[in-house]
């Protein structure tokens, strides 16, 4: 099998994403613990990481299941959080054009913030042929996938033994705080965050956490207005 360049590309995908995996590992543990704390059975808690494979939306889902939110609110919130993948897919598509439908389907499943970041960076810098690019993307994507599965299984195992007095559920909003601040980088995103925060506090007592979607929509509208006025 004359796959040496491909194997090398697969390896460099793993190497490039490796530093990021150090940060992914504790995040995966928290996702596993959160699933158990939300009341999921062991099999369900482990399967969540394979079926969804998107950390922030998994945490939000577990948080909302624990709070008894309406199923429609849970699904909508998770999908809205994951809507960012539209942008990643569009950015990577020109580089992965020509893959078979099956390869595209599997590649899409492996799409994450981290795999996108390293691949987009590498593809923008270097001219590589399609097999090399797809091998690189596969290396990065599978390395992240494996890390996520191993760390969330550890979280599921550990999660059952954590006493409720430790209030470990509080780790979820703490992770979201960091992700929220990381998402604020200009006037529009700042206005969106502040408006969503105020609206979320004002609508917090609506049943089934419906206020969440109202507040998010309000924040996005405010952000769009703030950008237009500039």
């Amino acid at each position, binding site marked *: 099998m004359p796959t040496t360049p491909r194997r090398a590309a697969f390896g460099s995908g793993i190497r490039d994403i490796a530093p990021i995996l150090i940060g992914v590992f504790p995040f995966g543990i928290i996702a596993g613990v959160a699933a158990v704390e939300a009341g999921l059975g062991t099999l369900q808690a482990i399967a969540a990481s394979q079926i969804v494979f998107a950390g922030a939306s998994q945490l939000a889902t577990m948080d*909302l299941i624990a709070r008894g939110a309406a199923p429609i609110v849970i699904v909508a919130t998770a999908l809205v959080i994951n809507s960012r993948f539209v942008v990643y897919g569009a950015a990577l598509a020109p580089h992965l054009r020509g893959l078979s439908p099956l390869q595209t389907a599997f590649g899409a499943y492996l799409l994450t913030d981290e795999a996108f970041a390293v691949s987009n960076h590498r593809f923008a810098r270097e001219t590589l042929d399609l097999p090399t690019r797809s091998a690189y993307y596969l290396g990065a994507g599978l390395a992240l996938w494996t890390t996520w599965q191993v760390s969330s299984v550890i979280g599921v195992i550990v999660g059952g033994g954590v006493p409720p007095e430790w209030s470990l559920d509080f780790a979820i909003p703490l992770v979201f*705080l960091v992700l929220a601040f990381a998402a604020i980088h200009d006037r529009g995103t700042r206005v969106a*965050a502040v408006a969503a925060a105020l609206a979320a506090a004002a609508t917090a007592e609506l049943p089934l956490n419906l206020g969440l979607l109202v507040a998010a929509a309000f924040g996005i509208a405010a952000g769009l207005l703030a950008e237009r006025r500039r």
Partner: protein
Amino acid sequence: MGGHSSSTVWMLLGVIGFGTWLIRVSFMALLGRVERVPPLVGRILRLIPAAVLTALVVPGLTHAEGSFDLGTTRFLAGMTAAIVAWRTRNVPATIAVGMTVLWIAEALL
């Protein structure tokens, strides 16, 4: 489980998993027919994380015990952690500070 049955949770995971995959595959597969994300959609997508993540966090802090109350241990710990999150953008540091403040506050109050 907040009132949700095991089969409801399976259904939720299935719908969210499949929906997420559709989002992931959409522009990868559509390319050729749709070349770029429309500008307004792109601007909305860019604002979503800041708005949704904030809306997820705030009620757990301002309404930690069910009704509006800024005197709870979770509000205090959350605000302290928010400063760390803002200055460092570091997940382990934010969790360490937030959980420590929460445990100390709960032991004292």
